[in-house]
């Protein structure tokens, strides 16, 4: 297969100058500076001149709406940038309230990367050692899952223990009300070791569609059944699935201010995934935050440049985006069983930042019997690890309040949402079982029954 065109070549072929990718070659940090200082050179800063101060982002920001401690994405981002050296991150510490949900960038009519600027600025904020201890763990879900697996019964019991959770809340600021997943007995990579490859297999005789499955660390370590369901659905559609070498996408590290480690993770993933991308094999994932990291954050926030990141980014698909864009014919020919369910679908903020609309809805609307209501909320509040921090927890709950109220009002059988942290968070706060949309598709294909409610710590 020929490599897919990159955005640059696509735009050039039409005589359009592409909007510059946010480029950054992270140089050595100046001596004596905290980590995060090395991110100052992002081109995102230069784009702040596109801001006309219309406040559309301020009106759309779900965090500024619920706390006046956050002045809003414009005030701490492009507006602040006017008073600073173009390469300096914001010096307003209130940028720490930004949850990174990305609504501001998406609603901006002038293409200002507001959220990216603020996420970069956040990384330069210093925190206390207790928070750093907590953030170390929150930023490394894959490491936590791997290390704690041998002690799994104890770890999972500890995660459910009210006493220990209170202690963690008081000492290191891990919010007691923030739902944490349970470590799975076996990882997905272990359970489907038959699909793991170091390099793409040589194509066989029949030209079947192929994908590289990017499971993300949550599916691997905490919800392996979700990965198995996804693989079953793909195989049912005639797709050959391979699991390339990969680790955590690095987004939790980025959100927890450790850009250097996030870049290391990113480079490892790029090395692992590039052989597939290079051959035009789509990289497909069910976690919309992980796939967003591959598509966007590596380039726009971590500032990675080069052909590897371009190719991997532009070969990455959200699972339902892949079904809709690449497997439209197979989907159209499916015999889908009716499911009599009332569903509330929440498109996560990270999915919306893909800028592809709501592909899961496109597919699920083919299933007879489903009654689907779509939420009004821009964000459920948790925004990855934001809502798990004691100092941010109340704000996160208030961000999600309208969504929780809508869930109570409509009393659906299930809530559907694509990102795992959103699913855990929404289930915890509404007490309505929450599922990934692929589980509904699998049930309608007759591949499996719907899973009973998950236990969250």
């Amino acid at each position, binding site marked *: 297969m020929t490599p897919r065109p990159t955005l640059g070549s696509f735009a050039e072929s039409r005589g359009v100058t592409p909007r510059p990718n946010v480029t950054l070659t992270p140089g050595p940090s100046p001596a004596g500076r905290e980590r995060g200082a090395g991110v100052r050179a992002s081109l995102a800063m230069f784009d702040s001149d596109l801001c006309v101060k219309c406040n559309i982002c301020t*009106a759309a920001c779900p965090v500024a709406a619920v706390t006046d401690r956050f002045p809003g994405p414009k005030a701490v981002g492009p507006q602040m940038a006017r008073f600073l050296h173009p390469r300096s991150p914001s010096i307003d510490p209130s940028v720490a309230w930004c949850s990174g949900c990305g609504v501001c960038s998406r609603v901006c009519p002038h*293409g200002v990367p507001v959220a990216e600027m603020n996420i970069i600025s956040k990384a330069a904020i210093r925190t206390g050692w207790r928070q750093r201890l907590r953030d170390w763990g929150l930023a490394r879900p894959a490491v936590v899952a791997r290390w704690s697996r041998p002690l799994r019964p104890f770890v999972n019991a500890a995660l459910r223990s009210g006493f220990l959770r209170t202690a963690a809340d008081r000492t290191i600021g891990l919010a007691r009300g923030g739902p944490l997943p349970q470590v799975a007995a076996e990882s997905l990579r272990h359970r489907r070791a038959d699909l793991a490859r170091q390099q793409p297999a040589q194509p066989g005789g029949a030209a079947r569609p192929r994908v590289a499955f990017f499971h993300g660390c949550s599916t691997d370590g905490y919800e392996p059944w979700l990965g198995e369901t996804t693989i079953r659905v793909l195989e049912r559609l005639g797709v050959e699935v391979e699991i390339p070498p990969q680790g955590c996408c690095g987004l939790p590290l980025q959100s927890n201010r450790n850009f250097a480690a996030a870049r290391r993770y990113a480079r490892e993933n790029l090395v692992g995934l590039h052989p597939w991308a290079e051959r035009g094999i789509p990289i497909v994932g069910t976690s919309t935050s992980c796939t967003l990291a591959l598509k966007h954050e590596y380039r726009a926030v971590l500032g990675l440049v080069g052909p590897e990141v371009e190719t991997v980014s*532009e070969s990455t698909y959200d699972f339902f*985006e892949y079904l809709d864009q690449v497997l439209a014919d197979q989907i159209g020919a499916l015999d889908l069983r009716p499911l009599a369910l009332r569903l509330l679908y929440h498109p996560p903020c990270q999915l919306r930042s893909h800028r592809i609309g709501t592909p899961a809805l496109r597919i699920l609307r083919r299933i007879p019997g489903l009654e689907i209501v779509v939420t009004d909320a821009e964000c459920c509040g948790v925004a990855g690890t934001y809502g798990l921090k004691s100092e941010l927890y109340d704000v996160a709950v208030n961000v999600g309040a309208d969504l929780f109220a809508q869930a109570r009002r409509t009393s659906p059988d299930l809530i559907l949402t694509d990102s795992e942290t959103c699913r855990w968070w929404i289930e915890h706060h509404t007490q309505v079982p929450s599922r990934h949309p692929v589980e509904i598709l699998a049930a309608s294909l007759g591949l499996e029954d719907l899973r009973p409610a998950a236990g969250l710590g």
Partner: protein
Amino acid sequence: MSPTLLIVGQGLTGLFSAVLAARRGATVRLIAEGRGGLSLSHGCVDIWRNGDIRFARRSLGRGHPLSELPREVRAEALSEFLQLAQEARLPYVAAPDRVLRLPTALGSVHVTAAAPYSLAAGSLDDPTPFHLGRIGGLRDFSADLATSAFRARGVNVAGTIDLPVPARARDLYAHDLARLLEDPGYRESLYRDWTPHMKGVTRLGLPAILGGDHSLEVFTAMEQRLGVSLFEIPTLPPSLPGLRLERALRRLAVASGVEVIEGPSVRGEVDGRSAGRRVSGVVATTAGGPRVFRSQAVLLATGGALHGGWMSFANGEVQDSVFGLPLEAPEDREDWTAPSLFESQPFSRFGLRLDSRRRPCDRRGRPYFENLYAAGGILAGADRSTEGCRQGIDLASAYAAVEAALA
């Protein structure tokens, strides 16, 4: 199979046509680079500068977008819009036989054809004198500025009153107050603080802060408890009346099955198999690079000069920003602008010309593509600001485009 329609732009034109098309059974995708026009607007429906919805078409110049739209279409579009607004619990006031003359934040008079109930309550034709409220900490509205300008104009303003709100840790925006006011507990505290200031007040004008998505409940409750008749005046953008309408229309669109794709900029895609006669959709700059969105028909609702619907190049060419269709413009750029900023600007009339089936066409009336439609600010021939016809064109041309695209 239901017909598919892809709409580019989510201003009033895009959102209104999306709801109309979805309710007529089409599968609709609405794709937009950000949010814009509508949330910055006053939320009223301006149809012509004298506010008259029934103005004679001969009073328009040839080639004006409204002169192509028969009176029945304009009336039908407005009536559908008013029904949708009603359904979204955002009732509008429109009297077919007279115009609304409403107060503005600068103390001038805004003549319009339809307005949200809370703005319409401020009609200057109501002889009851009014007070204006000075909300402490809200910078985006000056009761004193408005009052002095109204008095210079002979409008009877009884006076201004101070209305304290609890101090906040940062700048106070109209949408902050709107959200706070949706909380009955917060309203209770305001009643306590505001009631002593209501002596001698029968009618009170406030900046538009009375609630967001539940403005009708907030407005009614506050009128009752304060014991005065209230009205709102739109503030600096983003202004609540525009935001409420935008959110209401987007909610109606999503509930009607419209898929909203927010964020990417798009370029048009032409169907190669049709020998260039048809468009096949758009290519969008998604987070993961260019992705194609195909549709049987495409509707351009991209807006005019101020909204990104067209762009000009160094060589003097002017093109629509999605398909690169050529727009007519004077060769000398000096002729694009008027000598004064406050005159009608020639560039504001740049835009696409349409054939009788609402498709962009060349000078000789031949459509560029069989299945490409356009509506709203991208249409040539109108200066929507000075003519006061912005929303009139949006609604009527959106209505006509949807009818044509789904015919």
